[in-house]
């Protein structure tokens, strides 16, 4: 009997060795960090679902719906996306608490598309210290493109400064003798635009800008600011406001029978929530720049790529209001993450995720304007940096001119 037993032992040992070898081979291909496995990828997110900025909550809901769609279609490389999103109420202390919960309790692979400049600033140092990717932040501040100091943070949308520079370039070319009046919101958003405009105008800024007028986001109306702006008699008005004030400004300028050239930030370029309330008659000829398609703009209804967005909204977010540009935004951002996770393949480590996010080449999500492409590299953490000028005509925006790049270097 002993021989038999030892044979059995040898056999089982051989099986064990070969199994181990097999497993070893499999492990060599698949690499995981916390938050990823054979079946699941955990992605965290924070959004202001309550509080003063709760309108942006739609972005989080859209992203949640997008990954539900991805999961129903079989996931990414066979793995389901577990999208965990929390409310930070647009409060930095709450953002820190929720992000720590995502990283330390839910153990997510990465934090994706957290919204708001203050919240992102509050979590940036923590995430970089923990080496957790802070992917595609939902803010237009310029500082996210800083791979040297913050290699775990990457932006997504064009920065406010680069957009403002595009307006400045446009004015220098088309109207070099312009007298410019600027209306801006007194916060990081408005001030970034102001800086971008001045940088773009360069030496001529002092002579061209004849009036700067700021307002607080808590103001109920900004009629007096516009009357004050008019008293300086500028012939170009730059409107760096959030949507509600954008509509008010266009309307008030028309009421004053004042006819300057108007350029409005793309944050407030929505047909449904700005141009329509301001009155289409009043909005004729208004200029802006954009990188994404407008959900309320009929010219994209037949666009094959944008049809995907319509189909998605109808199936996964039934009953929601398509005029809300946040749904276009959320879809585009989620699709970018989708692409990056696909590129990661079976190497779902945080380092590789960051590497792939910084290796996007000419990627075109369904929701971006034709010709606007996402490009990133180890030195370029600003995924979208192209915009196209557009003019409001009838009830929609007409794009004109070339796609312009507005890369801003961070010092």
């Amino acid at each position: 009997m002993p021989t038999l037993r030892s044979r059995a032992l040898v056999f089982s040992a051989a099986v064990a060795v070969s199994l181990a070898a097999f497993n070893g081979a499999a492990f060599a291909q698949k690499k995981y960090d916390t938050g990823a496995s054979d079946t699941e990828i955990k992605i965290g997110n924070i959004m202001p679902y309550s509080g003063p900025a709760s309108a942006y909550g739609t972005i989080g809901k859209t992203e949640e719906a997008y990954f539900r769609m991805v999961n129903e279609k079989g996931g990414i490389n066979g793995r389901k996306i577990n999208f965990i999103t929390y409310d930070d109420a647009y409060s930095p202390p709450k953002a820190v608490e929720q992000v720590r919960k995502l990283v330390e309790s839910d153990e997510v692979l990465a934090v994706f598309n957290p919204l708001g400049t203050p919240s992102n600033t509050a979590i940036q140092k923590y995430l970089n210290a923990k080496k957790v990717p802070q992917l595609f932040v939902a803010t237009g501040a310029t500082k996210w493109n800083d791979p040297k100091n913050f290699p775990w943070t990457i932006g997504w949308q064009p920065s406010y400064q680069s957009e403002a520079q595009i307006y400045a370039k446009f004015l220098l070319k088309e109207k070099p003798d312009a007298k410019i009046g600027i209306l801006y919101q007194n916060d990081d958003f408005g001030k970034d635009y102001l800086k971008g405009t001045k940088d773009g105008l360069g030496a001529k800024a002092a002579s061209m800008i004849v009036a700067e007028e700021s307002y607080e986001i808590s103001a109920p109306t900004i009629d007096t600011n516009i009357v004050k702006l008019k008293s300086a008699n500028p012939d170009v008005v730059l409107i760096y406001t959030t949507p509600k004030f954008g509509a008010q400004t266009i309307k008030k300028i028309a009421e004053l029978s004042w006819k300057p050239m108007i350029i409005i930030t793309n944050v407030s370029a929505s047909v449904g929530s700005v141009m329509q309330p301001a009155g289409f008659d009043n909005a004729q000829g208004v200029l802006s720049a954009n990188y994404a398609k407008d959900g309320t703009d009929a010219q994209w209804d037949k666009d094959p790529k944008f049809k995907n967005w319509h189909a998605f909204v109808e199936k996964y977010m039934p009953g929601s209001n398509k005029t809300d540009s946040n749904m276009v935004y959320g879809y585009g951002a989620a699709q970018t993450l989708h692409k990056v996770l696909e590129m990661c393949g079976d190497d779902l480590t945080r380092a590789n995720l960051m590497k792939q996010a910084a290796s996007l080449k000419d990627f075109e999500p369904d929701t971006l304007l034709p010709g606007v492409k996402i490009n990133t590299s180890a030195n370029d953490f600003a995924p979208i940096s192209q915009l196209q000028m557009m003019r409001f005509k009838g009830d929609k925006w007409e794009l004109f001119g070339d796609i312009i790049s507005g890369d801003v270097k961070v010092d």
Partner: protein
Amino acid sequence: MSALQEIVDTQPIETTPKKYMALGNYASIVVVILLCVAPLIAKNFVIFQMTMVLIYAIAVLALNILTGGSGQFSLGQSAFYALGAYTSAILMEVGGVNYALTLPIAGGICFIAGYLFGLPALRLSGIYLALATFALATAMPQLLKLHYFEAWTGGVQGLVITKPDAPFGLPLSQDMWLYYFVLVVSMAIYVASVNLLKSRSGRAMMAIRDNEIAASAMGVDVALYKTLAFGVSAGITGVAGGLGAIAVQFVAPDSYTIQLAIALFLGMVVGGVGWLPGSIVGAAFIVFVPNIAEHFSKGLSGAVFGLILVLIIFLLPHGSRQIAYTVQGWVHKLRK
């Protein structure tokens, strides 16, 4: 203070016996042990949450001294909290001062600010005072954004702060060290506050709360004690603000909006107005209940939070104090 004086002084405020202000000895020991042991078994982020609870508890306690102690309302505590936070942040990041040393400075500056604000507030009472302080809370974030101060405050971008390590090479994580540091500070403030309210000054404040005219007839300097209450409350809030800045590692105007002032007010009501131990319950409420509400529904988190709040006000109008007394009653029955 002689025994005779003690008796004479306590007579007019028999409506609020001392035990109403603090926990009994046994209960205090149990709470302190729980607070000391809890971080040893919790994850780092839970420790962070508990640190935030303690910090908000200090701020709620400060409001409790003002409202529960001297009967004055304030919706402007967020302004003092912000002032304290920025004082600590600027001293640490621009001045290179040790974090622990910034706290007394933050408290001192806020004490002066609160005392000065208390002077004009003397002319106002009740809801008018609440409105005046409300104005303070609304103005604060904008003042912090002013470009005159931008060199120090960082303007709208705020300031990022480095988190302190445990000193003397103690084998504690940053979170755990900060938790125990905050625990010690908050216990010291709690003990000092209880003693303040038990003291002659505290009794004077409570006399003003109960009946201002009667208090002044008895020789209490109403103006002095009212402004003093404001100063002390603001000073303690400032310390809480400084600790909050260190724990969150970031200060920005958007952290200190009117929402914070209302949250602190809520914390005081939920904890029980005038009952100092309730502060920590109120603080736990403002940290955890929004998370619970969000768990029910993302879109309706605000509504769910409101519903929970209405239920609490309806079922427990005296806040956590009511529960504490009910439990105390049971314990006494069991003993018998």
